[in-house]
């Protein structure tokens, strides 16, 4: 099962390596990891996407909690939440496909953030499904470059899954 886990940590040097070291040392998987400061500059938040069966995920959250610098761990599997990720896709469509690519970008509420004589760079934000769907479509038109931020997630206000 794939889980999105957010980890509130002390913003100190070495913390990222403590977290990544925990995953590599114990053979857990990291699919994506994004880190940034919170409003309180002493605290950072990491969003980690990982996979594992229930027992592994239980271990991962417990092991994260055990790290001295970790303040809080939330497994979003247990919480109703919003998830977002951003990708930049540079496509080089054939002349006759250009309008179609622009139209698709519009349907997916993408933005053209750069364009050259042969390429468009499209920014797409959304949840995983939306991004996967868009990338799948673009593959047919020739993706030149591709970069993604990794997921971030936040609990919805007031609603909790049982």
């Amino acid at each position, binding site marked *: 099962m794939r889980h999105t886990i957010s980890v509130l940590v002390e913003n100190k040097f070495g913390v990222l*390596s403590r977290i990544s*070291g925990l995953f590599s040392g114990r053979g857990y998987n990291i699919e994506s990891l994004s880190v940034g400061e919170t409003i309180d500059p002493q605290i950072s938040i990491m969003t980690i996407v990982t996979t594992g069966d229930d*027992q592994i995920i239980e*271990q991962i959250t417990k092991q994260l909690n055990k790290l*001295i610098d*970790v303040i809080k761990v939330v497994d979003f599997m247990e919480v109703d939440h919003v998830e977002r990720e951003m990708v930049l896709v540079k496509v080089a469509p054939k002349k006759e496909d250009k309008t179609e690519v622009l139209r698709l970008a519009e349907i997916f509420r993408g933005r053209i953030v750069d364009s050259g004589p042969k390429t468009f760079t499209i920014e797409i934000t959304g949840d995983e499904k939306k991004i996967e769907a868009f990338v799948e479509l673009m593959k047919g038109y020739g993706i030149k470059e591709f970069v993604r931020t990794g997921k971030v997630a936040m609990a919805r206000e007031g609603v909790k899954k049982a």
Partner: protein
Amino acid sequence: MKKSGAEILVECLKREGVKHIFGYPGGVVLNIFDTLYDEKDIKLILTRHEQGAVHAADGYARASGKVGVAIVTSGPGATNTVTGIANASMDSVPIVVFSGQVPTMLIGNDAFQEADIVGITRPCTKYNYLVKDINDLAKTVREAFYIASTGRPGPVLIDLPKDVTAGKTDFIWPQHIQIRSYNPTYEGNKWMIKQAAHEIARAKKPVIMAGGGVILSGASKELKELAEFMDIPVTMTLMGLGGFPGTHNLSLGMLGMHGTYYANMAVQNADLLIGIGVRFDDRVTGKTASFAPNAKIVHIDIDPTSIRKNVRVDVPVVGDVKLVLKEILKILKEEVGKEQWSAIRKSWLKQMEQWKKERPLTYRYDEKIIKPEFVIEKIYELTKGNAIICTEVGQNQMWAAQFYKYDKPRRFLSSGGLGTMGFGFPAAIGAQFACPNDLVIDIAGDGSIQMNIQELATAVINKLPVKVAILNNHYLGMVRQWQELFFRERYSHTYLDVVPDFVKVAEAYNAVGLRATKPEEVEPVLREALKVKDKPVFMDFVVDWREKVYPMVPAGASIDEMLFEEEKKEEKKVRAVK
């Protein structure tokens, strides 16, 4: 008045109640060593290797329950501590290691004797620090001792750049420490405790499996009370030995790979297994799929990651073992009557006696050649079970666990999790400093003792009467045993062709060296050794190299699939051990 970083450090150590530090000097810790030179309240003990210093601090902590301290220099000094730190980490031993570091402005430059020791020890410390600002020093030391000794204890390393110990600032002792992200759970969840108590009250065939957590939490009294009140037999892991009296009727001794027949049978046939301060290590469980197949499992431990890591658990209780046991006892005493339980338990306890009779711990005594088990038995007899026993790793360790009975906690100091050859002797030195009036004996192998043999100098200079009983089989015996049983007797690189003359080695260091080559010499040698009060003694017991540790659960098998010593010629007496 401003103080130097070194002075602040020493002042902090005094306030933490540190009396002994094990260390080794070098360029970047000169300031610290210089400050310690005049210090009356703290004794620095110079070991002969940094690994020895950390194991000594570890042994000191295990024997006393206090935080052990070591100080070493940067680079090679720091890297030499890694085995010791990993060893303490695996066995949850509270130690604080200070390593010198190159000046802050040189960090990252591959400066002379620079090593990224914080990076290197990150996975094997409970926490570690690089102090970059002298104003953080006092707070860091305070935090380090707090983290090392609370919750599930463990090693903490503080890396001290030279300019930090050389610089000056005002000394401010933080009165309180509060780490918002570190709050160990001591009180168990009330509901879970109730569940656990009810499972215990309902069980017909319960077994307690006690681990190192019982000793760390100081819960021996509560454990004994629970076992006696409910008539529950108790087995112990290697780390748990002494947590429950080994001579008690309800004791089943150690379980697992080299556990007793009755302990393993009890676990495999129990309807309730109560794991207390254990982590269900693979040396204990064997094949987990068939471990305690008929039992519900109650697991009490302060570390939530221990729970459900290796085995399924029906009732998890996260909390301090002592506090949780107290609560459980309270509920049981309110709700059940003693008589009622004694009756129900009778047939289960009878089964224990049956198993004990069926296959007691035995070895084949021989009149011509010294059996290693015989040596341990004699040590037990002559010390009346009152010594602090350290061990090395290998067969010597297992025999020390099987044939010596530990009635009190902190009397059996052994490298459990990491299995570090070379641990026992420096740990014995540390234990002797912690308990100067106790008899400290290291039960050693001829291979292991050579891994930190240089610490003889430390013991001699400090007039420590540490005894080392070398079970000299001229082999890396435990590995040889595996080769004999599973590798068609192909003894690849386990024969120690050249074993030094341990008597001469001892004498070369101005210690006492004794040797026994025949069974009748064992007792006189031991008696002679016990007389020595101001020097370490090496006892070289030339033992039967063919001897193997039994019972044995082969790797990957269930713990009731034990191998036993094959029954051979009947002229050799089989000696049962009481």
